[in-house]
């Protein structure tokens, strides 16, 4: 048994920032992560991170209030405004803190941090490091964690939470390199496991972005919030869905259909290519559906050629490399074929502004959490921001909670049952015979989600999708593990992941079918209008072992900004 006062599950930006904060407050904290923290998916972020620094010549009068307004409007008024205010205020010191920690942001001539325009933002306020902002931020945060001497359990896959008398008291994890399961006892746990993109077959996300951390909380009885809001990024590469950052349009890139038209003119005449992602993805999908995809096929072009080689090499070198390696297209010479692709989970573990869940001792931060600052549609550049702002707050809140506990320390009675339960689960998976192939179910799930719960949604299509998902869930209980135990057992990890993914996917499906309106990323052809009278509320999904979730409503925190129609 391993003991730390605080265990952080996940070593991405949110987990690292939480750990550093708790450590600063004198807490014995450790990170447990499936991959070396510097390999987390945060490192794939490209375009940048928002803060109203007012460094850009065109943003001299930018303020956090304007950032807050853009965020709330972008969210289609589903974000909680107190949380948005907190995030947009904190954004400014947080970016300076990253700079002081050595984050290699790009610079303006005067030496200040460079900023670029991004979708849905009234001012150029996205701070960036070329088109590798996530990689730079993540490595900086790893460096800070190393300097702070945060212990890291690297390549440990967390399988479940330990809950004792309704209080979260640790986790059970698989030691991938040495083999075997181990109990981690703790006074509190922060889940920072990232998004659930891989429940879709057309995701920009890393292969490990399975939403398993969300499922762990869900299975332990904590609600998942607003799962139906799934962001489709307008520009994923056609064949791999690898992301081409919004920064490419921020730097002036065009979206072009088969007729050579910059079609965004029809949908967002003012913002054009820099409309928010929900609107831009729908516009592209409409062009494709109406036969104006390139050659009548299912994609359009992202054209950067007019930016010129120098600007592309300086500002978008990563994009260029990705397009060359993964699509065989050099953006200096040719337009890039792109499709809307699953990109971000607006929903997640229901938390307050300090990462608290409804379970004492359990916190969550980053993409796996839903505070909510993104509501029905996240603005580009607000997610990296969320990880550091709310990672810090969750780390501080967990530290404070631990400081306030009367009783402390290792306890012989806690967690042994959970450990035995996981070992039993593996044994029974391995002992099943002639069972289901987990990868066939995974593939069926991911394509069902893509086909039935995509950019546009409609009741009968979703109903059919939900039924398929229910079948798949039933099949998961018959999955057979071909290969149990040992070290670096991918078969076991991926089967565990599947059990979580199916439930998260069902939560998305059930929430989407229930919400009879269109808001942000949730666009229903049968209910095309936003319906504030009935639906200006969050969805909570509560886990039911058999079948789909139980859904409840939760009030939205309104405040500074009255809901209005969104026009761009």
């Amino acid at each position, binding site marked *: 048994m391993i003991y730390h006062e605080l265990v952080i599950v996940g070593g991405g930006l949110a987990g690292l920032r939480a750990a550093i904060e708790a450590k600063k407050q004198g807490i014995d904290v450790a990170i447990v992560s499936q991959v070396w923290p510097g*390999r987390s*998916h945060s490192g794939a972020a490209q375009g940048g991170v928002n803060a109203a620094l007012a460094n850009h010549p065109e943003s001299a009068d930018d303020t956090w209030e304007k950032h807050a307004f853009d965020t709330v409007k972008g969210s289609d008024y589903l974000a909680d405004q107190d949380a948005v205010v907190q995030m947009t205020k904190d954004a400014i010191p947080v970016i*300076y803190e990253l700079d002081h920690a050595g984050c*290699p942001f790009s610079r303006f001539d005067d030496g200040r941090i460079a900023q670029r325009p991004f979708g849905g933002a009234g001012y150029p306020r996205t701070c960036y490091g070329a088109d590798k902002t996530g990689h730079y931020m993540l490595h900086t945060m790893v460096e800070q964690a190393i300097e702070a001497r945060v212990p890291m359990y690297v390549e440990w896959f967390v399988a479940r939470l330990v809950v004792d008398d309704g209080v979260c008291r640790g986790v059970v994890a698989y030691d991938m390199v040495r083999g075997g399961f181990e109990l981690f006892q703790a006074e509190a746990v922060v889940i920072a496991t990232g998004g659930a993109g891989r429940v879709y077959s057309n995701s920009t996300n890393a*292969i490990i972005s399975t939403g398993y951390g969300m499922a762990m909380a869900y299975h332990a009885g904590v609600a998942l919030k607003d799962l139906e809001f799934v962001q489709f990024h307008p520009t994923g590469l056609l064949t*791999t869905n690898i992301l081409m950052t919004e920064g490419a349009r921020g730097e002036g890139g065009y979206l072009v259909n088969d007729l050579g038209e910059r079609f965004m003119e029809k949908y967002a005449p003012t913002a054009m290519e820099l409309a928010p992602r929900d609107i831009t993805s729908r516009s592209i999908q409409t062009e494709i559906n109406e036969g104006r995809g390139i050659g009548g096929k299912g994609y359009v072009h992202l054209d950067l050629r007019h930016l010129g080689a120098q600007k592309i090499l300086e500002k978008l070198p990563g994009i260029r490399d990705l397009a060359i390696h993964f699509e065989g297209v050099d953006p200096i010479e040719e337009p890039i074929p792109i499709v809307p692709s699953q990109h971000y989970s607006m929903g997640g573990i229901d938390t307050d502004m300090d990462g608290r869940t409804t379970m004492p001792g359990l916190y969550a931060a980053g993409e796996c959490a839903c505070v909510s600052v993104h509501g029905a549609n996240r603005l580009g550049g607000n997610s990296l921001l969320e990880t550091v702002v709310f990672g810090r707050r969750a780390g501080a809140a967990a530290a404070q909670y631990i400081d306030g506990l009367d009783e402390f320390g290792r306890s012989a009675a806690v967690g042994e049952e959970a450990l035995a339960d996981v070992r039993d689960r593996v044994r029974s998976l391995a002992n099943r015979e002639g069972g289901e192939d987990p990868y066939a179910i995974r593939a069926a799930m991911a394509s069902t989600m893509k086909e039935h719960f995509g950019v546009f949604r409609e009741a009968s299509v979703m109903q059919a999708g939900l039924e398929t998902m229910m079948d798949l869930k039933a099949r998961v209980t018959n999955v057979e593990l*071909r290969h149990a135990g*040992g*070290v670096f*057992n991918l078969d076991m990890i991926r089967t565990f992941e599947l059990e979580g993914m199916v439930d998260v996917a069902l939560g998305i499906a059930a929430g989407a079918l229930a919400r009879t309106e269109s808001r942000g990323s949730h666009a229903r052809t049968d209910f095309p209008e936003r319906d504030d009278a009935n639906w200006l509320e969050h969805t909570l999904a509560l886990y039911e072992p058999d079948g789909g979730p139980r859904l409840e409503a939760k009030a939205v925190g309104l405040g500074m900004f009255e809901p209005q129609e969104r026009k761009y």
Partner: protein
Amino acid sequence: MPEATFRIKRHNPEKLDDQNGTGGDRYDEFTVPYESSLTVLEGLFYIQEALDGSLSFRYCCRAAVCGSCAMYINGTYRLACQTNVRHLGDGPITVEPMPHMPVVKDLVCDMTDFFAKYETVMPHIIRNSAPPEKEIMQSPNDRKKLDMPVDCILCGSCYSSCPSVWGEGNYLGPAALLKAYRFEVDSRDEARKERLPRFDNERGSYRCHTITNCVEACPKELNPTEAIQWLKGAAVRRRLLGRAK
């Protein structure tokens, strides 16, 4: 449908007592069908899912930025996710873990020493003055000096390829030294003598004999050798000429 043949080096630590006592080391061949394009990583997943669930390898972003899937593919260091089988010519594709490193299982090598060495160079900014209220100013020219080293994804290819590492187990190796360089050239870093002794010694920069395997191995096309030569020069300037950084 085209097919690719994968020849994969296997190692299972739980079978150290098999016939030859090598951990069951052998090459297994698999046939992987594909439609129009297939990366080596996709091929490995196909094998793990459909043919042999016991195969082990590292993966994460599948977009060449996390550094997980560096392997030795047809005798060359490559990121499996970034390598399309169409570019590997005809014949079987031989996939091995990065050589000269201990193996955990199959294509997963043990990175413990690699990361321990990375940590010894103080891979973080060192500031001795109070932080300004806003950002620390940095000119675009000074920022440009960081372009090369900050692109390192710590995949380990350079480290595995370096004969000086093979010969001297204590040598920090190209990746750790590139990280030291990344901070030493950062105009915001105020290290005086803190980091210098970490790399300016016989297990540090002087152990580099400019063989440049690292430059060839780097999937990000970085140049650790040049960075290490800069570190040697910087140490001389600081130690002998008493210059500030």
